[in-house]
């Protein structure tokens, strides 16, 4: 096998791993944001959304 | 029974990341070897099968001795003993779960390690097959030891004398079958069949002995 083969495979493998990583992180972020939006919609709010009033109470 | 199997699998996955762990463990063990014997590829491929088998034995020993002890410590063993399921069957299922969670990943990972150790295709196949056939015997032997450990709180010595000497024949036939597959004069089948017979034998004796010991656990 020629050198070109090894070069191509190296770049290919690296690209693939990077693409997988990027895709996974991207999709993960999308899913988390969606879940957060759902929770927000169902009326559960972060406690710190009104921290000062909370503390005075 | 199915539920017991699932629970035990879940427990072993929960605690340590599951199947991945077995493979990782094995890789670590194998990665350590070349540091010891040096990067001599020829030598590595020669001791490869033995190393892979030793790794399997070690993996079987780690954790197996506590197969019933964890159940005893939290009281589950009492409930298990009271049920109408035959105890032998329960022990068998627990062994199966332990084998699935701890030994099977090793069997599956062994070809990869064979590659690392520069073993030939035949040797890799032979090791995988002998592991597949032989590791259940290790589990069953270990189960007897684990049951004895539960019933004799101070039986530590007995356990070690019981388990390893019994496991040695398994190891020896497993390794020699693997070598027989590569080295020409020696035939593969005889040691392999003996290995198979040992496994069958312990598949019966192991759970029987273990359940006997558990029933007699006196408190």
């Amino acid at each position, binding site marked *: 096998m020629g050198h070109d083969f090894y070069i191509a495979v190296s770049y290919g493998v690296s690209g693939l791993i990077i693409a997988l990583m990027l895709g996974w992180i991207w999709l993960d972020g999308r899913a988390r944001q969606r879940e957060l939006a759902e929770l927000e919609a169902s009326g559960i709010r972060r406690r710190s959304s009104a921290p000062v009033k909370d503390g005075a109470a | 029974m199915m539920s017991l199997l699932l629970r035990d699998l879940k427990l072993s996955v929960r605690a340590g990341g599951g199947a991945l762990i077995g493979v990782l463990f094995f890789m670590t063990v194998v990665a350590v070897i070349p540091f010891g014997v040096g990067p001599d590829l020829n030598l590595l491929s020669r001791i490869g099968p033995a190393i892979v088998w030793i790794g399997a034995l070690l993996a079987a020993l780690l954790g197996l001795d506590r197969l019933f002890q964890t159940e005893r410590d939290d009281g589950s063993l009492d409930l298990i003993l009271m049920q109408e399921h035959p105890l032998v069957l329960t022990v068998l299922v627990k062994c199966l779960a332990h084998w699935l969670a701890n030994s099977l990943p090793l069997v599956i990972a062994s070809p990869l390690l064979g590659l690392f150790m520069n073993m030939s295709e035949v040797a890799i196949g032979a090791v995988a097959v002998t592991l597949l056939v032989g590791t259940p015997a290790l589990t069953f032997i270990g189960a007897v030891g684990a049951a004895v450990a539960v019933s004799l709180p101070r039986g530590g010595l007995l356990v070690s004398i019981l388990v390893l000497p019994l496991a040695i024949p398994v190891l020896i036939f497993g390794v020699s079958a693997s070598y027989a597959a590569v080295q020409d004069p020696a035939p593969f089948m005889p040691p392999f069949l003996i290995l198979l017979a040992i496994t069958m034998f312990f598949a019966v004796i192991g759970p029987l002995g273990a359940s006997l010991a558990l029933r007699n656990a*006196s408190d």
Partner: protein
Amino acid sequence: MRLTAEKLAARRGEDLLFSDISFELGAGEGLILIGRNGSGKSTLLRVVAGLLRPEFGQVRWSSSSTDDAIRASEACHYLGHRNAMKAELSVQENLAFWKEFCGDFGGGEGVSVAEAAEQVGLGGIAHLPFGYLSAGQQRRMAFAKLLVSYRPVWILDEPTAALDTRAEATFADLIRQHLARGGILLAATHQPLGIEGMQELRMTGFAGVAEEFAA
């Protein structure tokens, strides 16, 4: 439906702890063991549950529906000092496992896991790992085990240890319901359970020694 103990005697170490204990419990009846620490209550319960071999005597289970050959222990639930739950699994998983593994006995039926958690007063937290619960919550969940799979006989060893007063009342209610449905109870306690009409058995410990020196 009848749980019979005949002239039981048991040993711990080398000494006879008790001997010649007999009782017979029918549907809806209960027996409470009382006695000082170390007097052999837990030992007797374990003998009845089939977890310790008696030195003499035997425990039998008889009922019209099942044949007589079954071991008495198969008709029993045993709640010992330890909770028999895995700290790594969630409460839900633990209970579901015991429900399936134990199955139901002789035509009875256990309630669902969610229902059982509700009944011991911890409906909302069945998804937590068991190890995350407080001591009393753990004890309550261990009790829920008795509800998810049906057994006519409940053998309880200090069921109310670590419980707050509200949970004690809940437990007493659940036990009352069990008896009302024809169950049998065998329990050891130091605090009275607050259930009426139970027989009592006072254990004295170390037969032959205890009689003379019992305070």
